[in-house]
Structure formats: structure tokens, C-alpha cells
């Protein structure tokens, strides 16, 4: 009787958890949260929340659900093909590449939602044709939303990663990109910093949003950004360290766990249960 390949089994168990988490569990929660908002705050009582007809919202939700179903089915298919194939590499190709492409397929509904959100808020701003504008006379600073220690940890993980890249470069493993990694890592962290900066200082996207809600949202986004930076730096450091230590087989499993962490972090930023929906009611003067 052949000995079971534990690495192979563990690989597909983690992959299956990625499929179920990102394409089933999290989308189901997103849809139920949106459904609860639509049911509790319908267009009849909260017209400012709906710059488009409710049918358009329903259509976007259907598209989101369908795309997730496609990703879920594709994930199941990959598991079935994988466990019935003699090759240890996914689709007889390169597991790392297949995992990355599949992850992009899984996040495509989220990208669609983000794009729809941008359009949605633009329509909301266009419909908000007041001549008065308001602002709070209170400064917003980075450390109002996240602790300096937390930011310090992010900077420390970044520096550690840079030092690790420089160290590995002295005895590189096959496929190690050298200084390009430093450029990529710096670009990633700068992009995250730019998103954080925009969250704090950019003009508000929702013209009706209460200031307290905005502060809460900024805090959530900034904390998620810092956490993402720490996670990404740590992930890359481990991804570089594993092949250098001769443990390349575990890189794919670690990538899948990282993708799941990213999905959970993104989901964490999607909070709509603590919003003040009173601001979306019809103006008494209009009624």
C-alpha cells in the first residue's frame, strides 16, 4: 500500500478552505449585510441612499453572487482535477501561477463591487446639489486613527524584509529576483501608504456621510492598511526564506493562507452595520 502524501493532502485541504472562505463564506456575509440594509432602509424611507433604481442595485448583487459562484465551481474543479491527477503541480503546470490566477478570479467580484461603488458615490454626489458645504474644524492625523506602535511594527517588518533580501542576494536561490524585490516591496508599501493618506485627507466620497461615520471608516481603513502592510512584508519575508532554507514545497501553502488572510482583512473593512442611516432620509424641507 502506497504511503499517503501528507504534503499533497494538506495542500488541497488549505486550497479547499481558500475556495470556501473567499468564494462562499465571505460573499454570503457581504450579501446578507447588503440585503439587511436594503430591507431595513428601503428607497421609500431613505431615498438619498439610492442614487440608482433599486433594480440596478439588485442586478449588481446578482452579478456579484454569480461571479462568486463561478469562482466556487472553478475552485471545486481544480480540487477534483488535482486529487485525480498524478502530478503534484496543479493542472500539470506550476502551482504558484495557478494559485495566483485563481486568487485573481476569486477577487474579481470584489473589484467589480469596488468599481460599482465608485460610480454609485459619483451619482450620489451629482444628486447632492446643495450650495452649502460643511466641514469639521478639527485636524485629522495618522496617529488619531492608529497607534504609533502599530505603524512602527509595519516599518520594522519592511526594514527586516529589505535586510533579508540583501542577505539572500549574497547566496541567491534559483529564481530570486535580487534588487527588483526591493523595488517591488517599496512600491507595494508606498501604494498602501498612498491609500491610507487618501483615506484620511481625500474629499469624502459619500456627500451625506455623518462625520462620526467618516472617522470610524477612516480608522477602519487605516488600521487595515497597516495590518495589510505588516502581513504583506511578513508574507514576502517567509516566501523568500522558505526556498532559501530548502522548504520551497511549503511556499504554495503559505501563499494560500496569506490570500485567505487578505480576504478576511478586506472583509473586515466592509462594515455597514454601525452607520448612521438617518442622513439618507429625505430632507424635511423637500417632503
Amino acid at each position, binding site marked *: 500500500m502506497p504511503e499517503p502524501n501528507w504534503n499533497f493532502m494538506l495542500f488541497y485541504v488549505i486550497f479547499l478552505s481558500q475556495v470556501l472562505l473567499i468564494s462562499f463564506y465571505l460573499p454570503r456575509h457581504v450579501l446578507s449585510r447588503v440585503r439587511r440594509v436594503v430591507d431595513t432602509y428601503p428607497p421609500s424611507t431613505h431615498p438619498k441612499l439610492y442614487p440608482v433604481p433599486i433594480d440596478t442595485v439588485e442586478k449588481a448583487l446578482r452579478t456579484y453572487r454569480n461571479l462568486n459562484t463561478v469562482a466556487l465551481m472553478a475552485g471545486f474543479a481544480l480540487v477534483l482535477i488535482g486529487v485525480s491527477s498524478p502530478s503534484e503541480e496543479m493542472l500539470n503546470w506550476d502551482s504558484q501561477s495557478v494559485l495566483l490566477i485563481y486568487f485573481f478570479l476569486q477577487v474579481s467580484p470584489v473589484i467589480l463591487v469596488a468599481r460599482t461603488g465608485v460610480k454609485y458615490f459619483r451619482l450620489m454626489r451629482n444628486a447632492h446639489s446643495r450650495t452649502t*458645504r460643511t466641514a*469639521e*474644524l478639527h485636524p485629522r492625523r495618522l496617529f488619531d486613527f492608529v497607534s504609533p506602535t502599530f505603524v512602527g511594527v509595519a516599518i520594522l517588518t519592511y526594514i527586516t524584509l529589505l535586510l533579508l533580501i540583501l542577505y539572500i542576494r549574497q547566496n541567491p536561490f534559483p529564481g530570486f529576483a535580487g534588487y527588483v524585490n526591493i523595488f517591488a516591496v517599496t512600491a507595494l508599501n508606498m501604494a498602501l501608504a498612498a491609500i491610507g493618506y487618501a483615506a484620511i485627507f481625500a474629499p469624502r466620497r459619500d456627500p451625506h456621510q455623518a462625520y462620526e461615520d467618516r472617522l470610524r471608516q477612516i480608522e477602519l481603513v487605516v488600521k487595515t492598511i497597516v495590518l495589510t502592510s505588516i502581513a504583506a512584508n511578513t508574507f514576502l519575508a517567509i516566501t523568500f526564506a522558505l526556498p532559501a532554507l530548502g522548504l520551497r514545497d511549503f511556499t504554495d501553502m503559505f501563499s494560500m493562507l496569506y490570500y485567505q488572510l487578505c480576504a478576511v482583512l478586506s472583509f473586515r473593512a466592509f462594515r455597514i452595520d454601525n452607520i448612521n442611516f438617518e442622513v439618507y432620509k429625505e430632507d424635511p424641507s423637500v417632503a
Partner: protein
Amino acid sequence: MEIIIDIDDSVPLFAQLIGQIKKAVLCDKLRPGDGLPSIRQLANDLNLNNKTVAKAYRLLERDSVIQTKGYRGTFVHPDAKANSTVDLNAWVLTKMGETIATFRESGVTDSEIRIAFGDVMNRRGN
């Protein structure tokens, strides 16, 4: 403390900003040492040009209602309350009115006053 500006108002936007910040200081809604938003933050929140907010801040700083402490930001001046009651524009108008009245009494024509005023201003600029 919320600030409200009306883009259809005949009062210039920077003047509305100055007026509201001074009012907030006089009503004790803003106290000496309180932080104020950065120019970019306030301009973005009010959907205004940065230059408009910068002009308001510059004039408030000139009047010692606010003070900028480098990278630490902008704060309400310790003497802001007393300085908020001073209206330099009104003072200039009063002084100019008195001076022009004196010239007229001495027989200087309006045309001569305008030319002299222009000369003095240009000389000061050079």
C-alpha cells in the same frame, strides 16, 4: 465645531472662512492652542481650491488669530479672542475715509488723490 460655507453667497469664500473661524473663537468653540485642520484637509472637505483656504489662513495668521507651528500644524493663537474683534478692513476704511476727507477739505481733487494713492502704492511695491 462645524464650519458652513455657501458658494452662492456674495461674500467671498475666503472671507466666509475667516468670519466663521473668528466667530468660533469668540463663541469659545475654538480655544487657544486648539488644532485646526491642514489647508489641504479643509480644502478637500469643503471642496474648495487649496489657495482659497491658504489665503484665509494667511490673513488669520496676519491678524494673530491662528499660528502655524511648522510641521506640527496650525493652532489657535493664545490671544485669538482679543484679536478676533479687530477688523483691519474696517479700520483701513475708517482711516482712509478720514484722510481723504482731510485732502478734500484742503482742495485736493479726487483725481489728484487717486494719482497720489497709486504713486504711493507703486513706490511701496518697488
